[in-house]
């Protein structure tokens, strides 16, 4: 008994010493008011007005983040409302598509932000953002998941969210012979999700078999993510006429492009004839590669968000689950959608942020949450 007590006492002593030694350091880093936070984002939006629509989902997402800084509440429709500047920050300068300057709103009901102002660079490419992070020319910027590894290797401070963005193949309703569940199943089996995560995403993210991530639903492991080229080939051989399919993707999105090309390679190995087409061209396609961001960390709400977006395209049952839906009901619904192969989940992507060393109290926003820029403070330059 004594023999085991001594080591325990030693461990407790050491832990106490560590905690006591940390207290002075923590007190030395109390939040500080002041400073200008430098932010860079990719979209080059033209307006912050919630009534003005965004050109694409990326623009809409970025606008949502900025609107959350300058508006104080949402209306019944979920759109931001109130006067510009009623939020934590006021807009002091605006150059559409280029830059925006925000100043701390001293009268904000939630309390004045720590930083005095935010300088936002609009329309900055992923490469520019990464370089600026490396060169300490910006304090906060989004980083593409596939670049997180390189950024970390280059010494950039990285922050990752839980994987909350689903990259999936979506099959719109088709009136021709291609609208065959075996076609969709063959493709679902052919795709090598692990290779996409390991090589294209550089191990950032997870293979996706279901519509909800493991960390959210806890049932994702029940969906298979393994590639089955032989099974795909067998199914494809049963389809008469061997239809030639077209996969649409957004060529402006380098990740989508890489994943789409990989899907084509996988499909070809299974004998499936698949061609790529840029959806920006507006041409009809048999399937589309889409990014689906979770609206909430709650499985039911996240699934409802996906359904709201996918149902009109794919014809899957849009009926939402009740508030009291059990995990089993959510799983069954998820399983039904997956097995219809109207939506083929590929990978889960995290949100990756690059931060400068002076940014303090950064908390990674959960799914459906906005960037907490009003809560961070900047360490004074040495």
């Amino acid at each position, binding site marked *: 008994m004594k023999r085991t007590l001594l080591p325990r006492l030693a461990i407790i002593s050491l832990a106490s010493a560590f905690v006591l030694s940390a207290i002075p350091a923590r007190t030395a880093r109390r939040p500080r008011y002041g400073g200008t936070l430098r932010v860079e984002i990719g979209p080059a939006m033209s307006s912050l007005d919630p009534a003005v629509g965004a050109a694409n989902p990326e623009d809409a997402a970025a606008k949502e983040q900025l609107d959350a800084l300058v508006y104080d509440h949402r209306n019944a429709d979920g759109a931001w409302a109130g006067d510009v500047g009623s939020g934590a920050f006021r807009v002091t300068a605006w150059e559409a598509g280029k830059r925006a300057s925000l100043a701390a709103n001293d009268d904000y009901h939630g309390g004045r932000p720590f930083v005095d102002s935010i300088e936002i660079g609009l329309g900055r490419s992923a490469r520019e953002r990464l370089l600026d992070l490396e060169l300490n020319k910006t304090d906060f910027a989004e980083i593409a998941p596939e670049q997180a590894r390189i950024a970390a290797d280059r010494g950039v401070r990285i922050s990752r969210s839980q994987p909350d963005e689903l990259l999936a193949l979506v099959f719109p309703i088709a009136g021709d012979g291609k609208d065959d569940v075996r076609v969709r199943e063959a493709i679902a089996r052919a795709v090598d999700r692990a290779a996409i995560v390991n090589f294209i995403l550089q191990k950032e993210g997870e293979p996706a078999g279901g519509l909800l991530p493991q960390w959210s639903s806890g049932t994702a492991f029940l969906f298979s993510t393994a590639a089955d080229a032989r099974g795909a080939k067998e199914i494809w051989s049963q389809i008469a006429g061997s239809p030639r399919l077209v996969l649409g993707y957004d060529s402006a999105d380098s990740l989508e492009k890489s994943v789409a090309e990989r899907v*084509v390679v996988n499909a070809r*190995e299974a004998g499936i004839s698949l061609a790529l087409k840029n959806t920006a061209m507006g041409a009809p396609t048999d399937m589309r590669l889409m990014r689906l961001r979770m609206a909430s960390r709650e499985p039911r709400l996240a699934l409802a968000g996906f359904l709201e977006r996918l149902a009109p395209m794919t014809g899957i049952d849009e009926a939402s689950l009740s508030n009291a839906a059990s995990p089993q009901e959510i799983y069954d619904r998820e399983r039904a959608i997956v097995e219809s192969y109207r939506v083929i989940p590929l990978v889960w992507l995290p949100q990756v942020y690059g931060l400068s060393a002076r940014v303090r109290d950064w908390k990674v926003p959960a799914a459906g949450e906005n960037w907490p820029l009003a809560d961070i403070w900047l360490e004074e330059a040495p």
Partner: protein
Amino acid sequence: MTFRTKLFWIFTLAMLFAVGLIAAGVTIVTRQAFDELNRQHSDALIAQFQKEFARRQEDVVHRVRGIAEEESTTRMAVALNLPKGDASVYVNDASGVSRSHQLDLLDFVSNDGSIISSAEWPARFGYKLDWITRPEDWATVGPFLMKMDTAEGPALGLMSVAKVPVADKSIYVVGGERLGKEFLASLVLPAGMRALLYLNLDPSFQSANLIQTSDEAVDAERFAPLVEKERRQPGEQTAKIDWTADAASAEVFHALPLQGRQRDLLGVLLVGSSQRDAVTLERRILWLALGVVALGLLIGLLMSWWAAARVTRPVRKLAEGAHKVAEGNWSARVDVRSGGEIGQLARAFNQMTDQLVDQRERLVQAERVAAWREVARRLAHELKNPLFPLQTTVENLQRAKERHPDEFEEVFRESTGILLAEIENLKKIVGRFSDFAKMPRPELLPVSLNEVVRAVVKLFEAQFGAVGRPPITPELHLEEDLPVIQADSTLLTRAVENLVLNAMDAMPAGGVIMFRTTSEEEGAEVHLEISDTGTGLTPEECERLFTPYYTTKLHGTGLGLAIVQSVVSDHGGRISVESETGVGTSFHVHLPLKPPPHPRPVNFPATLEENEAADVTPAAEEEKKEA
């Protein structure tokens, strides 16, 4: 066609043939020379291309080895040798390295053949290139052609492999240059040449697999036969393609097989050589030759004309002489001074005309004698009948005077009556001869031939139905609109009367005499036909019918139809006869509306004409005596 024209054409055609033969020979020889020149040119260019291709191969080998020897590649190989070596880190490396080394195709391949990174198809990582792991000493393997899979589809690459040996696990650098549009564009080819590449990726010829440097539309199907030939039997092949109907658009293509390591045909390089310059030069030569030919032809034509004229001039003179002789000028002579056959011919011609004149004079003499004999015979025949009663009457008178003086008065009265009758008969005979000799010139006035016919018919009406002889029925078929002619109505009436008398004599048993007048289609003549249903004439009689003093009747003078012919001829007309024995005879008289100024000479035998001209005919003699 005249002899001169014939000769001219013979000379011309002979010259054309000769010139054409020479032109064709020059063209063929020129074409052969150009073909040989083109062949040498193409051979030189193909050799140049092969040299360029070899240089590019060496260049590819050099660049791939350079990548393999780079430190970063070595570090990659080392990292992958580590127990937890992660290949995903290098998944995008190939693209950057390929750009920096200007390689279209680049793959980093792991020891087990898996693609670590691919420049031409980045999404293909993880898949295996089985062929690279086969036991082979890549250090000794030179560049080779290979079909490579890319994101855009299969491509033909000029490839090289370099091995990066590190510990147990080597990696491979597979790099190369895509044989495509850029590769073709980088080839240095002289003007007038172009290179196309056919990628042999499908079992049969596909137009889409044909690559060319320019964006100019080309009918790829035209290459199909050459490519198919190359597929069946790889080797250097040549074919000419005419793009349009214009020969200058043609190109000669040399096909070079591009084979892989297994001697499989991966592509066909088509080196085309434009024929435009050659054709243009050939055309220039041809045009020059044509110009020379045209000039030669013109000169030849002129010379042919001159030569033909020179050769045919004596012949033409001979022809003119012969023509004069044919027209009656028997004294015509030909003045030809040339020697040879033509000269002999001319001399023979002149000799012949001399002989003809001589013989004609002798013939005229003979005919004149014969004519006089004929006239004498006719006169003797005509006069003999009246003379015999005269003689017997006079002898009766003498006998009555001597033997019966008392009856002399009565005999005298009877005899003198007979004598007077016979003398009157003699005067009539002489008068007829005199009338024929004194045929007057026609006095032309507007005359209706129909009226003439009707008048004659009316004159003879009594005789047609005379008592004691079989009746003759006249039938008139006269054209109402018959034009008026210029004629002497008296002479014309006399001629018609003679024809009617002739017809009546031919119908002793009666019959039908038919008169028909018509105008000729041209409107320049009128036609009178007088037909009878008499005994008819033999062909021999028809031939001699219009001969003066010829008659088939017992008491005819043989001058009636001769007078008719004389009248018709004096009016510039013509007369003909058709007859069939036992059926009847038809006389056809054609008279012009207006006689020519100088009517044709009466077609009397020359002897009589001359007799008349010489005024020594019996009638003239008698007239002289009467005068």
